[in-house]
């Protein structure tokens, strides 16, 4: 995990450096009133921004869905996972309640809400607050670190959560995602 964050940080600095360098070149072209160069630099800047955005986007954490071994399924569809994490399905079967667990580590959390629930972090938070303040659900359990989350899911029957794909999994099962 740490290695990945270090490489992410280095790449982010590299993108920031190229953006600043392009801006300086653009300023110089503007000061020299060189129209051709100005157009050229603007195109390069635009491409750099687009590349940076897509590259930074790809830096986001990949996540895996995990559950307590008591959960009797190994595969869930994307749609079913979304329904579970939005509180629309509340039990695995007649004897096992679903307990949702959320990791609030920012890059993983952001990736999870966007990819799994198709919501931003604030929209996801408000979704659950709405359910809670109208009596339709209890808020998911929240943890700041993956170790705490893994520990809780391993001990809690019916629990489901997510971690980054680089995390070593112990005492929990990984759920495969199908279309």
């Amino acid at each position: 995990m740490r290695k990945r964050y270090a490489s992410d940080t280095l790449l982010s600095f590299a993108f920031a450096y190229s953006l600043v360098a392009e801006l300086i070149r653009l300023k110089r072209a503007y000061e020299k009133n060189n129209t051709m160069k100005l157009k050229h630099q603007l195109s390069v800047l635009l491409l750099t921004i687009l590349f940076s955005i897509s590259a930074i986007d790809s830096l986001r954490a990949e996540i895996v869905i995990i559950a307590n071994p008591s959960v009797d399924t190994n595969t869930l569809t994307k749609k079913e996972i979304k329904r579970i994490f939005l509180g629309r399905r509340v039990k695995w079967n007649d004897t096992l309640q679903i307990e949702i667990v959320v990791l609030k580590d920012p890059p993983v959390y952001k990736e999870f809400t966007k990819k799994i629930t198709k919501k931003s972090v604030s929209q996801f938070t408000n979704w659950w607050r709405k359910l809670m303040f109208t009596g339709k659900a209890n808020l998911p359990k929240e943890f700041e670190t993956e170790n705490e989350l893994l520990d809780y899911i391993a001990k809690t029957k019916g629990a489901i959560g997510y971690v980054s794909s680089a995390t070593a999994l112990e005492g929990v099962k990984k759920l495969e995602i199908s279309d």
Partner: protein
Amino acid sequence: MKKVLFLIIFSYIFFVGNVFALEFGDVSIHGFISQGYLRTDKINYLADTKEGTFEFNEMALNFSTILTPGLRAGLQIFSYDLGERGNDEISLDWCYGDYQWQSWLGVRIGAMKTAYGLYNETRDIDILRSGIFLPAGVYPEIVRDDMQSIRGASIYGEISMYFMGDLSYTATIGKHIFTPDKGFAAAAELLLVTEVSQFGYENVQADIIEADAGFVKNIVLKWNTPIIGLVLGTSYYNIDDYYWNAVGEAGELFLSSMTMHNWFGWVYSLQYTWNDLVLTYESYGMVLDYKSRFQYPSIPFVLDSDTRDHQESWYISVTNRFSEYFELGFTYNEYYPDRNDKDGSKINREAEVGAGSAGNRLPDYYAWAKSKTISARFDLTSNWCAKLEYTSTDGQAFYNNAENEESDKEQQWSLYAAKITYMF
């Protein structure tokens, strides 16, 4: 005593517990407390706002637990103050048992929040939206107390339509708690005084002594379309046999009553979410068919009148979250108390006849309210939220006699609002 208990729990959470939620065994406890400030420039709106007022707060505390897989129970107590409304009286907001048998079928029994439109269930909880107030035409304050919750039963679920998305539904039957001193009845009491005064009586007094209704039927459908982020919805409610009875004094005692043959309303909703941008459109209609009766004991006949009110409103809003801490929203709302009199020609004529003098005519702009609102939301921490809001309104359809003098007739007016909320 209840208020003291309420405050003790909040004080404990605020000063002692550095927590996002309290848990006692299997019981989760959550809540929020908010304090706002309102100021208007030309008329009073909802409170004595021309001088600025802090009579604008809300508090809620809820307890919930999971009893067996699929079965949960909980309750929420709630209080609010908004000028003469609420007055921090504690009420049972919701209290019900909820069993989800399958995703497509669940049952709730007890007192549930009344669902219509995208926001009525959460109208008391402004932390769930960008703005401080909901668009007043679609979510009228006049029925806020009456439509807070339904005591009864509902079925709900979500039906997968495969490549066509999902359809969620909620159908509820039960009763609203109508009281003579709140909501629709309280507004009717003020209207009664105004109407009797128009016939030249002075020091008119009226007191609604009884208000109730039969069953409420409520259905909400939401279609999560295959287009990611696009939700379409519709809501419908019908209230059977609403009535109130009043006694009053205008020179001598009089009796008055109102019985509603039809009271139904509907909302059409469209919401599109693209990343942090949310576009919302809702249109609202409400029909009231009622018979009013007015009787002086000293005269041998009664005055009966049959009336149909058909209200109409719509709004469009756009909000965008710019960062974890900041969100901005804009809303445009139009409201017409009488959809057949959008230009005010009828209200002007009726007032002339009622008052018997052209000098007392209601201006045509009492027939509409068109408001533009800008809201800024600041999420200071995950528990603290602050908001600022500015609303500019053309028209006086939201005008309330209780909060204004006869001379307060202004077509254009503005509302400034600020609010801070703590939740856990």
